[in-house]
């Protein structure tokens, strides 16, 4: 029996390439665990059982033929249900797409399939990525494996749960306002929001086009860096992808952070919950111990982030969801859930005649100020350390009746999406025995440096070793 609980991609890859374990065995182990725990955790909406076995058989054949394979070959992963997977149902966790089966693959799906990963299935989420807790799913929320009375965070809730509960070795996600980093924080995971334009969005159901960023969850930093090697890159199908070179993000990850300047933004600490503040300060202490220099910085327009975000995002959402008219695909628009309807109405309003200037246009101007906050800060420091969430995961049902209060949970994550810069959530410690993550934010295309810093912190603290008991 393979011990999935402490398995990482690095270890699994070694087991597979040394043929200590076959791809089929590994895949079956995950499928068995999914069958056992998914009913209670609700991480997966669709399990790709036969497809996964088929892929695993192919990989075993390739291994036996001594084919040259990447470390991702045979690695079972899950895809957030926003990712178009050809022939496999894709719902965005909405009743509108309950029976939708894409006829094409998202670019990232093709790329990872090209590395012979095993597609275990499609994970649960807030419908249309509208949410920070996972409770806006039309198919019931996913549950936090550390405490199933609590939310796993959203919108990439199921992806976080799948990795955290060992129902996958990695899972993809999207981060528009914190939708990877927040669940990563609540579930003790490494969650990447890469630079906007680093990873192709083609084939991924659009939420807010100028904010959506495509990333992934893993247990460890090295695992996370490895996946970016294959998901990143220019795509002729996505006009916003960058032509800048894709580095080997895992190489030299042990470099260390001596002399690195890391900023601590005061606006993120003022008013922060005292326990969380303590955790962040402790994290800063660890980084100092490892040789970094901690510098106080200011991101002056931080307070306007949520308002800016909740104008730009719903506006673009209202336009991106216009294609769901039930003619070429999908169920009719009356199947949209309450949060989707709310955001469509809000976004239609903020774009409408007489209001466009005061809202969308104004938000685009404030956005420039927020971009400048980060550009200015990165002239003084190499990276920024910040909290990801206000604290550990809250209880299911706690915020569902108060949309605005739910939106305010995004306060530490949205400005990063507004600016487009990359940020990695890593396990930062525990409060009341629940995981709390921290963010390492960098300038555009600094993922390699972020991984090096995160790796150093991770190896020093080893918070990832505290896995949930499910």
């Amino acid at each position: 029996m393979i011990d999935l609980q402490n398995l990482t991609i690095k270890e699994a890859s070694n087991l597979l390439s040394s043929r200590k374990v076959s791809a089929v065995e590994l895949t079956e182990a995950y499928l068995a665990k999914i069958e056992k725990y998914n009913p209670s955790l609700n991480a997966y909406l669709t399990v790709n059982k036969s497809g996964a076995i088929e892929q695993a058989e192919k990989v075993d054949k390739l291994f036996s033929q001594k084919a040259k394979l990447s470390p991702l070959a045979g690695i079972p992963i899950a895809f957030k249900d926003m990712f178009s997977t050809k022939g496999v149902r894709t719902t965005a966790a909405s009743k509108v797409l309950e029976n939708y089966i894409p006829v094409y693959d998202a670019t990232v799906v093709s790329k990872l399939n090209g590395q012979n990963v095993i597609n275990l299935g499609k994970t649960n989420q807030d419908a249309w990525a509208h949410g920070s807790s996972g409770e806006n799913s039309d198919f019931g929320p996913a549950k936090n494996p550390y405490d199933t009375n609590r939310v796993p965070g959203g919108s990439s809730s199921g992806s976080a749960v799948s990795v955290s509960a060992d129902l996958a070795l990695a899972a993809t996600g999207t981060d528009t306002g914190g939708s990877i980093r927040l669940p990563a924080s609540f579930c003790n995971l490494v969650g990447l929001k890469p630079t906007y334009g680093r990873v192709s969005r083609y084939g991924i159901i659009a939420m807010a086009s100028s904010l959506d960023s495509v990333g992934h969850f893993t247990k460890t930093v090295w695992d996370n860096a490895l996946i970016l090697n294959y998901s990143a890159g220019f795509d002729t199908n996505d006009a916003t992808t960058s032509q800048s070179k894709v580095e080997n993000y895992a190489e030299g990850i042990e470099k260390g952070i001596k002399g690195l300047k890391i900023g601590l933004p005061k606006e993120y600490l003022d008013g922060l919950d005292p326990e969380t503040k303590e955790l962040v300060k402790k994290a800063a202490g660890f980084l100092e111990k490892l040789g970094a220099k901690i510098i106080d910085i200011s991101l002056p327009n931080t307070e306007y982030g949520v308002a800016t975000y909740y104008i730009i995002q719903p506006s673009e959402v209202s336009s991106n969801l216009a294609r769901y008219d039930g003619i070429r695909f999908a169920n009719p628009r009356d199947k949209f859930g309450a949060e989707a309807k709310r955001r469509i109405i809000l976004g239609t309003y903020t774009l409408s005649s007489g209001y466009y200037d005061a809202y969308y246009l104004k938000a685009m101007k404030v956005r420039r100020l927020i971009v400048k906050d980060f550009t200015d800060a990165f002239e003084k420091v190499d990276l920024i350390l910040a909290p990801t969430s206000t604290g550990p995961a809250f209880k299911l049902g706690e915020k569902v009746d108060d949309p605005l209060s739910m939106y305010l949970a995004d306060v530490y994550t949205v400005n990063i999406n507004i600016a487009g810069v990359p940020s990695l959530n890593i396990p930062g410690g525990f409060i009341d025995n629940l995981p709390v993550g921290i963010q390492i934010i960098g300038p555009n295309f600094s993922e390699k440096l972020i991984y090096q810093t995160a790796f150093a912190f991770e190896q020093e603290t080893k918070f990832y070793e505290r896995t949930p008991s499910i």
Partner: protein
Amino acid sequence: MSKIKNQKLKIDIDHVARLANLKLTNEEKKTFESQLAEIVGYISQLEKVDTEKVEPIGQITGQENVARKDETRPSLSQEDALANAPKTHNGFFEVDAIFEEQ
């Protein structure tokens, strides 16, 4: 631009729902009206940010002039194109009749 003076602001929800092609129940209208009034009140705080000399930013990548050569690639098969449609007829998508003349 002082359509946004008040802290809680009412949206003409009937008009906006029509623009958004959404049919709302009376219940939904009531709930959304009050929730959205609160949210709009919150986002209106941007009014106090001084952006007089600030240009809006749409494309944060800084990229420009992204275009492709005028070349063709194979299209989807008709079968794939229609695969998820609720109603089709002889290769067309089918909807209830739309009248354009009174």
